[in-house]
């Protein structure tokens, strides 16, 4: 492990890779601040750039930098405008915005930056401990277990979707899997479901799908409802003056950071949970354990209330790299896009990543430390200037967002039909969003679809049928777990409702 860390240090501290981290963080912060462009869209736009670099380590470092930068940028717009660019930073606005309203925008940004830094750094340390351990377990896995593991991942994503949403999330996952079967797979060497169209021969491009699922609906919502993403600030509050916080406030933050970075990390590791749940849960936990007067402060500009979600969402972002790097299974939309980028660069993430290409594995982890440092020392002082981007009128902003969305899909493929598909899928995604269907499961299903089928087919061929499910206890166990994950939420909801009805009758 030490050897690996040294290789990683050497790779991460090359001038090129440090430049990548800095550039990634800056670009991420810059775009992440804009309403309508979350981390997924930004990473999707940056993928062609990253692929052109040719070096997988540098590419992944750039994209990871963009990811942190985007989360940080999202926090900034949450605090300054009460307009979170990212779902993961909604909880940040609960206390960040009231603080900014009190004229303490500078302090709020610093607290957010310090909390993010601590969360990200502690998360990266936990990642260094847990990823190698998980990798060594995962090395024992065969294709049957991989197949089962992916089923668990996909079920978990649906199970965490929330009450009344499990079936909808499953439906989206299946749609994603179905879309993945379009085109000529490597496995069978014959085109499937192309409807005779040449453009579908190579399947649907995942960048196009990612753009269509996230960037386009968000941009369309900005057009449809001008109130969305517009600054709710009544002016004056986003003057960023004093960036300091007091010693007492610093002391109050320390236990919050300690608790939330660990909690956030483990929530991030779970597939499907991710930064959004981590930040809301972090906020709720801290509010519940706060005492009297401090609890009153929550929602009115509490230091703890701001530090908690910021620490948790960054730790969760780092945590979400664990399943990606060790199992090759993305737990969130963003890591799914990163996985797509890695595959495009001919790197297969999984347990072998650490042993076969330690320079990629460790360089990414080391660059997480550098990235967090860059955000703290470089981006924070620059925030007052970067925040000027928020004053761009929407008449200018929206055409550019649409243009970047189109470019992201076009550059990778150089095919104008891709753009038509983008618009079509984007309209579909917008309708899904209107009907409250979650879209991340669709994308994750799409990206995992090919791998899921490959592993399924391989185990079927090895065991000449479905025998592998019964002959390999681990596979069976994982599949049972997957079934439980899907069925448990609705069972518990049903029981809770029955009980509630019983009480009502008893009265």
């Amino acid at each position: 492990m030490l050897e690996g860390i040294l290789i990683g240090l050497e790779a991460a501290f090359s001038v090129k890779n440090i430049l990548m981290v800095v550039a990634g963080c800056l670009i991420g912060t810059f775009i992440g601040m804009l309403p309508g462009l979350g981390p997924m869209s930004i990473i999707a736009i940056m993928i062609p750039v990253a692929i052109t670099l040719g070096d997988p380590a540098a590419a992944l470092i750039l994209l990871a930098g963009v990811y942190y930068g985007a989360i940080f940028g999202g926090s900034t717009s949450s605090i300054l405008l009460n307009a979170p660019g990212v779902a993961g930073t909604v909880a940040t606005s609960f206390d960040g915005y009231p603080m900014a309203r009190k004229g303490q925008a500078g302090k709020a940004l610093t607290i957010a930056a310090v909390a993010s830094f601590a969360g990200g750094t502690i998360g990266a340390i936990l990642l260094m401990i847990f990823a190698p351990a998980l990798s060594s377990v995962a090395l024992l896995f065969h294709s049957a277990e991989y197949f089962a593991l992916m089923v668990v991942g996909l079920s978990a994503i649906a199970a965490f979707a929330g009450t009344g949403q499990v079936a909808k999330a499953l439906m989206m996952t299946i749609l994603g899997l179905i879309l993945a079967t379009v085109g000529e797979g490597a496995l069978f060497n014959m085109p499937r479901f192309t409807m005779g169209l040449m453009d579908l021969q190579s399947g649907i491009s995942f960048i196009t799908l990612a753009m269509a699922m996230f960037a386009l609906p968000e941009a369309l919502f900005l057009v449809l409802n001008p109130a969305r993403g517009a600054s709710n600030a009544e002016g004056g509050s986003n003057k960023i003056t004093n960036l300091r916080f007091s010693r007492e406030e610093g002391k109050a933050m320390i236990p919050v950071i300690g608790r939330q970075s660990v909690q956030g990390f483990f929530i991030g590791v779970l597939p499907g949970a991710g930064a959004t749940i981590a930040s809301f849960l972090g906020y709720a936990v801290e509010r519940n354990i706060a005492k009297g007067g401090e609890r009153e402060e929550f929602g009115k500009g509490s230091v703890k209330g701001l530090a908690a979600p910021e620490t948790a969402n960054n730790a969760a972002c780092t945590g979400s790299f664990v399943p990606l790097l060790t199992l090759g299974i993305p737990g969130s939309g963003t890591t799914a896009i990163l996985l797509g980028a890695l595959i495009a660069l001919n790197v297969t993430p999984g347990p072998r990543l650490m042993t076969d290409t330690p320079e990629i594995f460790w360089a990414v982890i080391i660059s997480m430390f550098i990235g967090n440092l860059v955000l703290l020392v470089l981006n924070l002082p620059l925030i007052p200037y970067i925040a000027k981007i928020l004053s761009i009128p929407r008449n200018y902003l929206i055409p550019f967002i649409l243009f970047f969305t189109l470019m992201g899909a076009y550059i990778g493929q150089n095919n104008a039909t891709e753009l038509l598909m983008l618009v079509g899928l984007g309209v579909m995604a917008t309708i899904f969003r209107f009907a409250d269907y979650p879209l991340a499961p669709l994308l994750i299903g799409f990206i995992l679809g090919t791998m899921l089928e490959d592993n399924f087919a391989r185990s079927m061929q090895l065991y000449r049928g479905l025998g592998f499910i019964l002959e390999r206890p681990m596979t069976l166990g994982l599949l049972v777990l997957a079934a439980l994950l899907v069925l448990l939420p609705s069972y518990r909801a049903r029981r809770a409702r029955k009980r509630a009805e019983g009480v009502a009758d008893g009265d």
Partner: protein
Amino acid sequence: MALDRWIALIFVTFCGVYGYAAFFTMDQLLPPFMQRNPVWPSTFPKVLSVLGIIVGLIVLFGVEKTEESDGEPSATEINYRRLGDYKIGQALMLLGLMVLYALMLRPAGFLISTTTFLVIGSAILGERKFHIMILVSVLATGFVWYLVQEVLGIFLRPFPFFMGM
């Protein structure tokens, strides 16, 4: 019937068509030696279509109870029941513009089509200061083209087809 159930209905129909293709038409093309394999190209789609129909029906008939959300949705929440209040015309026009851009990108070249796209896009959104918008669009287009073509080395045809580039 609420929008989400309509979508579920369409999804079930779609899975039906997909499943029909998987169960009945796909295997006709399968060469005989592949038919001895335990997995066929149609195996996975068959499983998916069945699962899709089951899950789609669950959503369609509301087997899983959804939580009733209480209170008015906030102004920034998006809600299709308020579609009439939204600027749907602008959104449709922008979508049309994107389609047009996709069709014109090759024949008209990157520089002309992009500049036009940005100017018309902002005009649709209500911008009337054309002198600023045109200047911004031209500069931005030129910058992006330079970045993509020269720095990233990805070819983008800059000029219309008849100029021979």
